């Protein structure tokens, strides 16, 4: 990692993104105090996270999507009780938080189940409860929705959003999921090879690079040519499948779908959003610099 600079204010949710090995987790580890920087300085709530690691730990919450902080063989409620003791959460406050989390994250039936018997989605909901039960002021979420289905993802995003608004929590979210970023973050920091290559509003990224959508049509017969509205182009046509890309600042999905369906018989169609990784790839390839020129 090389000369990273940024500042976060209370209540901000920032998407911290980059490909594997870019330095995201290293930053998080330094912010939590697990790693010491080679040079430069970090202040989290005015403290040095490494030198004041215990004090820092008291005010932060961490969720690593691929690791668990819950005790594998214990029932969730036992893990939560233990965490509340470790963080010295007042029993009245703990009861209040537990009731709130049980309701919003639907933990009722999970409280008595050992973590090893939970599904991925159930585990992630439990992880979030464990990370936030002591009301941290700063939360680091590393891939919190990895491998989850859309319904659970949505529930987790809503929960994070509500917690941030009600408690003015500051969140750093690392993810490869464009949906997470779009739903939760106003600001995004993109890191590549240990350097920040973009720090700014998510809107800028979306406007510049997320304007294309793709529609795939499954057709009754093979198609050679199609008359398409402005901003749309045929990417491929093969074996009863037609793939069309359109610029949503110029056209709409309904216009494109309508035009296609007026000309051919369609059995099925699906709309796909650009992957965040593709957008990030464009930025790595100097797309931002080209835009600035």
């Amino acid at each position: 990692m090389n000369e990273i600079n940024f500042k976060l204010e209370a209540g901000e949710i920032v998407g911290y993104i980059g490909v594997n090995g870019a330095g995201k987790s290293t930053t998080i580890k330094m912010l939590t105090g697990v790693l010491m920087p080679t040079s430069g300085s970090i202040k989290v709530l005015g403290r040095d996270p490494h030198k004041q690691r215990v004090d820092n730990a008291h005010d932060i919450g961490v969720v690593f999507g691929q690791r668990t902080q819950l005790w594998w063989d214990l029932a969730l409620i036992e893990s939560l009780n233990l965490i509340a003791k470790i963080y010295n959460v007042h029993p009245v406050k703990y009861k209040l938080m537990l009731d709130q989390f049980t309701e919003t994250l639907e933990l009722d039936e999970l409280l008595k189940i050992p973590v090893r018997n939970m599904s991925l989605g159930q585990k992630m909901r439990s992880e979030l409860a464990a990370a936030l039960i002591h009301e941290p002021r700063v939360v680091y979420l590393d891939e919190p929705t990895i491998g989850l289905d859309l319904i659970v993802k949505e529930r987790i995003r809503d929960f994070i959003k509500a917690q941030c608004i009600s408690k003015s929590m500051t969140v750093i979210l690392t993810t490869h999921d464009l949906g997470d970023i779009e739903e939760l973050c106003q600001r995004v920091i993109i890191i590549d090879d240990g350097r920040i290559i973009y720090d700014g509003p998510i809107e800028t990224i979306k406007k510049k690079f997320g304007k294309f959508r793709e529609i795939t049509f499954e057709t009754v017969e093979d198609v050679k040519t199609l008359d398409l509205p402005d901003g749309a182009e045929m990417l491929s046509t093969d074996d009863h499948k037609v793939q069309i890309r359109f610029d949503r600042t110029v056209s709409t999905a309904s216009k494109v779908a309508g035009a296609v369906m007026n000309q051919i018989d369609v059995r099925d169609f699906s709309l796909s959003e650009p992957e965040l990784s593709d957008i990030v790839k464009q930025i790595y390839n100097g797309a931002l610099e080209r835009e600035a020129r």
Partner: protein
Amino acid sequence: MSVIEVKQLTKVFKIPKKEAGLGGAVKGLFIRSIKIRRR
């Protein structure tokens, strides 16, 4: 005041050099024991 402030943050991971053979293993154990004692 900002909640998080990061300035000129740099992290370089040093990969420890390993020496081949029995001599290297003994040296490695010796260095490790010193580190443990220092803790």
